């Protein structure tokens, strides 16, 4: 009989050993999990090693003098004052420009745009921009801001370039935040006679704000770590002064790290490690800020 012929291929129904999964079958699953954990361990282990290495090498150099001095040809006199000021000013410009434009784009795409060719063009375009290598943005800034608009290799040119770089990220995270606002809120607002903008401004944005802000802070932290576009733009590696205004020449922390790392002297590598500690510390603070802000705002609304 057909049934019993097939049934013979497996443990018979009378066999009650439910734990009889073949060893090799179970082993394969365990190997897969083991490999996954190994993969995680490699990534995390490498970054842990990196952090420890950086801390061991950089901490002895990290003092008040390091934070308040300009760069120098001598490692023991080198500092990151100009770089920190440069980073701060650049990021302020980046945020001031990209935040409103990004949020406005997101509002348009989520609340206003109809499903037509123009909307699709913008959406495809944003997806493509997000995948353009950052160094290409440097070339864009060099051609457009530095030369075409005559801003020279200035803080303003750098900030604007980074603003374009993070714009796709800001749009994407802001859209997600706006999309997650329940539709009932919009309908309720329309129901009492609010216009579209009143609905967006008074109801949708306040609810979406925690998500938007968190996403934007993370985008800003991406901008802080960017090196390649600013190098390409022509930001300097060696700046022994503080910028007078936004059209002055500048450097930023990542570029200083890059510069010191590529010097042959070992002492400069240690100084670079100290600068990395500062950079990672700043990023850590910003991310903590994002988390705290999100919690606070969540409670409020």
């Amino acid at each position, binding site marked *: 009989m057909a049934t019993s012929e097939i049934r013979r291929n497996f443990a018979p129904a009378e066999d009650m050993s439910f734990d009889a999964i073949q060893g090799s079958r179970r082993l394969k699953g365990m190997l897969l999990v083991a490999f*996954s954990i190994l993969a995680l361990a490699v990534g995390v282990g*490498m970054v842990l090693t990196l952090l420890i290495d950086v801390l061991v090498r950089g901490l002895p150099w990290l003092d008040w003098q390091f934070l308040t001095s300009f760069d120098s040809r001598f490692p023991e006199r080198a500092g990151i004052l100009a770089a920190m000021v440069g980073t701060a000013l650049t990021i302020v410009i980046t945020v001031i420009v990209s935040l409103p434009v990004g949020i406005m784009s997101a509002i348009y795409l989520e609340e206003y745009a109809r499903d037509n060719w123009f909307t699709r063009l913008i959406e495809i*375009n944003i997806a493509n921009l997000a995948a353009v290598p950052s160094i290409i943005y*440097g070339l*864009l800034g060099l051609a457009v801001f530095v030369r075409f608009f005559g801003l020279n290799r200035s803080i303003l040119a750098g900030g604007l370039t980074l603003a374009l770089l993070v714009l796709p990220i800001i749009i994407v995270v802001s859209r997600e935040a706006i999309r997650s606002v329940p539709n009932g809120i919009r309908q309720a607002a329309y129901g009492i006679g609010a216009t579209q903008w009143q609905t967006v401004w008074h109801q949708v944005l306040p609810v979406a704000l925690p998500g938007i802000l968190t996403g934007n802070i993370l985008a800003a932290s991406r901008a802080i770590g960017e090196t390649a576009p600013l190098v390409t733009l022509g930001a300097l590696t060696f700046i022994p002064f503080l910028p007078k205004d936004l059209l002055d020449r500048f450097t930023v922390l990542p570029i200083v790290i890059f510069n010191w790392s590529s010097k042959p002297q070992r002492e400069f590598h240690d100084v670079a490690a100290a600068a990395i500690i500062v950079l990672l510390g700043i990023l850590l603070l910003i991310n903590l800020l994002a988390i705290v802000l999100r919690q606070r705002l969540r409670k409020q609304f």
Partner: protein
Amino acid sequence: MSMAAPSESSNAGLGLQQRRPHALGERFISILLMTAAALSVVTTFAIVLSLAGDTVAFFREVSVIEYLTGTLWTPLFSNPRFGIWPLITATFMTSAIAMLVAVPFGLAIAVYLSEFASLRARSLIKPLLEVLAGIPTVVYGYFALTAVTPFLRGFIPEIKSFNSLSAGLVMGVMIIPIVASLTEDAFNAVPRGLREGAYGLGAMRHEVALRVVFPAALSGVAAALLLALSRAVGETMIVALAAGQNPTFTLDPLVPVSTMTAYIVQVSLGDTPYGSIGYKTIFAVGATLFIITFAINFGSTLIVRRFRERYD
């Protein structure tokens, strides 16, 4: 935006006519928002135009044939040669090494996250990956140059101070979170019903993961891997720091090379005046890089569109 009280606008009839001031304001706002959204399209055009301008100028001085077929890249020497291949081989060698690391590890993490991990493990691993992805690339570059290369020298004494191997390995670790999160998205897009179908037959977790979920998500995985490859090709600081700035036409991972991105950095750091041939080269190389990454990204989009599994 003040809410107009109904009485102000309802002098005539029932007041159901359009509230004029609002209508104007609403229109203005919607145009403003649309302009902001259109800025991203302007950005793309600006990128293409700014690359094209100096690239065209470059090819007025240099033959396209030499650029596309030459294997010597010495644009700043007194006897300049403009063959792009040394930069391309270097770019793809470092990217290939990075993918060799990132693909198996990233996929394994994604499989684990989507098919094995408990909620608690997930809530631990996801932020960890975000931390990995948030470290600036210049820091990874520092690490490749000052720690990984000396470490590798312990096993491979002939390795040079600048080499593709350690740059590629570190870049691979950098890309792991990207591969993991993009492919996990692809796995999560596989409907629950397929998994249940397999579990209902007595499949174990790894069998469901490898023989049902993975094949069903294949197009999404391929698209994700292409995006990761494009990240590797365009990555700059790790290779500029650790792989060197010597345009050598070689596939030896132990010697200094120069990727396309590293070359752009090298020229940008020097004092190259506007309009000089050196200045134009970085736009020509940039345009080449842009076209290559665009082609890879486009391929990824095509795969997603063409092979999207339809389950309904």
